[in-house]
């Protein structure tokens, strides 16, 4: 994308607002933040994210950062990763966390659910093959537990194993001893988290006004 001027001008933001559903004020705030993170450059790179101090104590930091550079999250049916992103892609990734509006039909709600779950699925499925294998899931659990000092590798493994077992039981029902469960596909993932109410949980409040950003 070409250089975006940081004017609160309507025309620049019009198509962005349409694409992502944010309001002009929200886009303005996020743009300011984007510039702050990228030190007024046009694109963000991974090391820009590493500068954020509060993010350092987050156990799944690397996965979050990767999610920003994952083409699958750009809503253009792309694959693979990029090394730098522009403001539009930043905004598109952020739009996954927008809360659903009050009056939506059931179909829209289902669509939003799928979108958000797809985001999380992409975060787990690091090798882009469309399934979450046992190794990938183990990695997820290990990352979650990585903050605790008393990490025992086998505990993480057994937790991931139990979780995988649960998925397989829910999705496959009955399997012969010889069959092999390849990994969690997106449909199984949907089925697994059917009760999770993600559309009301995976949201953050996007500000309409620019408060002094303390979380640098």
């Amino acid at each position, binding site marked *: 994308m070409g250089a975006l001027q940081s004017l609160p001008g309507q025309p620049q933001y019009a198509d962005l607002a349409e694409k992502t559903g944010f309001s002009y004020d929200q886009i303005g705030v996020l743009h300011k933040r984007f510039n702050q993170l990228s030190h007024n450059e046009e694109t963000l790179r991974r090391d820009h994210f590493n500068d954020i101090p509060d993010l350092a104590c987050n156990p799944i930091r690397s996965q979050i950062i990767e999610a920003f550079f994952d083409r699958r999250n750009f809503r253009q049916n792309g694959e693979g990763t990029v090394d730098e992103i522009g403001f539009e892609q930043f905004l598109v990734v952020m739009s996954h966390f927008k809360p659903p509006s009050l009056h939506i039909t059931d179909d829209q709600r289902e669509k939003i659910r799928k979108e958000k779950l797809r985001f999380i699925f992409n975060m787990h499925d690091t090798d882009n093959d469309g399934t979450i294998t046992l190794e990938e899931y183990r990695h997820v659990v290990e990352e979650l537990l990585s903050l605790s000092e008393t990490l025992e590798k086998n505990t993480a493994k057994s937790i991931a194993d*139990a979780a995988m077992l649960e998925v397989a039981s829910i999705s*496959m029902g*009955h399997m012969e001893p010889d069959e092999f469960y390849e990994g969690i596909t997106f449909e199984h993932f949907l089925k697994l988290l059917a009760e999770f109410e993600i559309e009301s949980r995976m*949201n953050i409040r996007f500000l309409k006004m620019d408060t002094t950003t303390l979380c640098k």
Partner: protein
Amino acid sequence: MAVLLRPPRRSSSRITALLVRSACVLFLVVVCAASAARRDAVEGNNDTSHHPLTNSTAHKKKPFPVLSFNYDHVRKPFEISLWILLALLMKLGFHIIPTVSTVVPESCLLIFVGLLVGGIIKAIGEEAPILDSKLFFLYLLPPIILDAGYFLPIRAFTENMGTILVFAVVGTLWNAFFIGGMMYGVCQIEGAKLADVDLLSCLLFGSIISAVDPVAVLAVFEEIHINELLHILVFGESLLNDAVTVVLYHLFKEFSHAGTVTVVDAVLGVVCFLVVSLGGVLVGAIYGLLGAFTSRFTSHTRVIEPLFVFLYSYMAYLSAEVFHLSGIMSLIACGVMMRPYVEANISHKSYTTIKYFLKMWSSVSETLIFIFLGVSTVAGPHAWNWTFVVSTVVLCLVSRVLGVIGLTFIINKFRIVKLTKKDQFIVAYGGLRGAIAFSLGFLLTNSEMKQLFLTAIITVIFFTVFVQGMTIRPLVELLAVKRKKENKGSINEEIHTQFLDHLLTGIECICGHYGHHHWKDKLNRFNKAYVKKWLIAGERSTEPQLISFYNKMEMKQAMMLVESGSAAKLPTIVSSVSMQNIQPRGPARRRAIPSISKSREEEIRKILRNNLQKTRQRLRSYSRHDLMLDPFEDLSEVRFRKQRVEMERRMSHYLTVPANRQETPQVRKVCFEPEHQVYTYDDSDSTRGPRSSPPDAVSLLSESPQRPSRRGDGELRAKDEQEELKLSRCLSDPGPKKEEEGDG
């Protein structure tokens, strides 16, 4: 709370219930009458008993009384126990008749019974006991509030804290002033004969009647299983509005004596509100921390652990009441503060005890409250005034609806998940009044107005409990309001809950503002780094939440196995998917491990089970002070571990890497969370020696040095059998513990 009995046939069960109920009522009546008669008789006896001593020479010596009657001696406790017994038998009776209990909420039935009993007592000319305010506030209310506070779903509560506070504070204030003001207007109407009710009295009345009552809300909402959000909104509001009620009540009471209100008084009122609420919370938090700290040292005296929880909480309530702070908020704060740390410290039995005692006491309290309400209705002097009463009822409804709609409009601007019209309706409809309003009214000084007020209050209570209580269930179904979802305790959901927490915190950081998640994360880290070290004993303090959840799940499944008896299949394998289906396979492994036939498995399992059962029967013993030596608990541990081991073995059936069970966390926790219905289990329960050697007698089997599992499966099973038999042999002669630990 419900004790379900299976009736042989419906008609006979109905007759039984009726018989039971009429028997109780008759018995009670007889006793009351008897006590009235005997009171005189006993007094007479007391007088005459002196005579033989003084006039022994003159009169003949009375024969030694073989059987004597002295009811006065035990009168008070006898009557109290009788009342409680009656109340509980009523409760029992209701659940025998299935149709009635589904249509009519229990609270209505209990009030009805109270009316009946009150009527009977009045008919025989006795004086009926009234719901004394002191009795209510000091003895009947705390157990219910503690039960509610201790098991409060924290996550939902804190997520909706803003909404709840707005409803509680602003909503109650609105209600009080609207009702008070409008009632004053009504009183001014000519011909209503209410001209002597002045503005301040009306406001006082408004403040009494405006508060949503936690007891009534609990009683009704418990049965309709509504979704968590609505439940916590209405319930949280009913708890937190206590501070407002307390302040308004005392404020207006003072003013109605003084007669005039100045601006200074109003400002003082606001300050008072802040002091009352925050002070109450502070008092509760202090006691909660004390309780948590105490529980850290109770590992050697497990029997009295539950008492600490109860007593600290009760002290928190009483201390708050001393300073006229909000006792309810203090109690809630104490329970909420104490719970995570206490749960990590206490044993499985103590936790179960706490849970069941709280449920038991709160159930008894609730039952008694409703019955007494009914009795007091019949007993008390009433001053019925059509205008006053009807307008009270109407105004309550109107103000509630207006308040909820208005506040929701404002709140929705700040909420992420907005409240829909359906939600608003349920919140408005769930604004039930109850016994707190009655007791507050009862505390008023005796006057004409008191009777007027009491009559109106009782009418409103009856209206809300009967009409709203009975119709809310069909309305919920009609409106298709979301119900409470059954929480299966899925480990995937737990993983993703945590994952989502961290993800949202990270995104907030990237966005650059301090949001809800950021603060929550900071609090968690503070908690982990400093607070837990002080308040949780031993290694539990560093255990991450995911691991404790996982352990809970495992133990839950193990306990399910144990409880369902020997014939149950392992639940994880209901779908016949086991670890082998998931593990990536290599060609070499297939050759090394032959499969085991299902019948052989069953045989082995049966043998293991039988051995355990035999040893269990031999070792039952009882000791009042020394729970730790209880081998029954020991044996349960054995069974749990055994089943768990079996499960794990099935799961890691064909793994090449030996399941290193030594490395899994030794110390686990058992607690019974009603929301999750999971169990965890505490090994430390069984350790008698110093904590440094966590492996207990049970760990023989699972903690045995890494068994090279490359052996054939048949061998694996055989070896386990041998170990199992060895284990049962050790346990069959309970020698000193060291021996058991060293054995195997």
